[in-house]
């Protein structure tokens, strides 16, 4: 009985401190600085810069690929279908998903012209090595828009793994959309990839 009690106590101790050390593993200040740097770069070198649209698109693609962990997000977005997809499908999906995101967001990025991000600290995440960086974008009228950046730390490397705009997570929304499509598609993941390619061609 004593042994069982001891084992439980050790387990509880490990779970408690394990959880805290996982949360503590994320450097909040560094994570916030990382997002600040990304947004500053986006505003200065892309939106407000005096270069051609093609150059802006190229810079955006580079920044997007450096800042976001699209492979990690893409895996989440496919949900359980990631497991059933073939390695070739996985690779192709990530590639198309990346291209579509770059194209879509590159077009919308100009809407941030004349705006800025006001950062207001971080919030812990229940997932180890992740943290939420909170920011607001003041609008022309009414309340500012809340934009939360979910950041994942891997050693000294930081990557954005989700962006939450007014409580709407882009990762969750994409997952809902893609898994619903796959569920209703006779071609499964291959059907999704084909459809995404068509979207890409239309852009």
């Amino acid at each position, binding site marked *: 009985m004593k042994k069982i009690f001891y084992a439980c106590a050790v387990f509880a101790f490990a779970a408690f401190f394990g959880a805290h050390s996982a949360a503590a593993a994320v450097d909040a200040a560094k994570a916030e600085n990382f997002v600040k740097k990304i947004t500053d770069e986006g505003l200065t070198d892309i939106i407000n810069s005096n270069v051609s649209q093609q150059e802006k698109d190229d810079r955006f693609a580079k920044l997007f690929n450096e800042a976001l962990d699209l492979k990690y997000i893409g895996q989440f977005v496919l949900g359980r279908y990631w497991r059933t997809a073939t390695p070739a499908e996985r690779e192709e999906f990530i590639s198309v998903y990346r291209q579509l995101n770059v194209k879509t967001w590159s077009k919308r990025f100009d809407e941030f012209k004349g705006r800025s991000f006001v950062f207001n600290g971080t919030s812990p995440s229940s997932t180890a090595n992740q943290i939420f960086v909170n920011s607001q974008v003041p609008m022309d009228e009414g*309340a500012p828009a809340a934009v939360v950046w*979910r950041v994942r730390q891997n050693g000294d490397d930081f990557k954005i793994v989700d962006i939450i705009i007014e409580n709407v*997570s882009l990762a969750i929304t994409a997952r809902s959309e893609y898994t619903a499509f796959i569920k209703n598609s006779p071609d499964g993941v291959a059907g999704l990839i084909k459809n995404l390619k068509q979207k890409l061609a239309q852009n």
Partner: protein
Amino acid sequence: MSKFAALLFVLVACAAPAASAAENGDDWLESYNRAVFDFNMQLDKYTLKPLAKGYRAITTPDIRSRVTSFVYNMREPLSAVNHTLQGNVKEAAVSVGRLLINTTLGLGGLFDVAAGWGLERNTTGFDDTMAYYCIPDGPFFVAPFLGPITPRALVAYTADSFASPMYWGPLNDKNYADKISYSYAALVAINARERSLDLLDDLQKNSVDFYSTARSAYIQNRQKVNGHSLCGSDADPASYDFDFDMDEEFEYE
């Protein structure tokens, strides 16, 4: 309302409201919802959307901004009442102050003078009040003409409509009461749709399943509304703090 908020407003509403199917992730009315959603989209394509485009074509951004200010000013009495019901006396006073200032100095609400004086807009309604008192949202469904909604949101938006000054204000004038109410409702709908034109087009164009996108965004937004309640706690994890390693379908909570 910001463009981001417009995303939610429209995405999810094209016309309005919301609620949390939030009890679980099942879309038990999916077949019905998809059919009504498609009907609404077709209706929008041939009615509200062309009207919104026409409205954009014949007005300048500044005129549209004045119209938006006017619409928001008409909501201030509703916000004042609901802030009071939520026990937020300070914000209720701000709403009253904004109404007085903008209706007079702001020329009937066309200009948001009060915001320049530090009285920022903080719109609320019966839906927020019901959420505050922990009244359940009920299941998500798509209402004909209205769009994504929940039972609680439907009740709340109906109450909002009847409590609007543009409904009870002209009631005594039998000749114009209906004309004023319906004209105002049309103005609100067209103005809201115009503000979401580009964003909705973009979302629709890039979505492989627009119904699922709209449903997901709508429910997530409802979680924000439902988060400000007496039953919640600041210590509760954010609704978007999901587990990245989860393998099964995402369950809305």
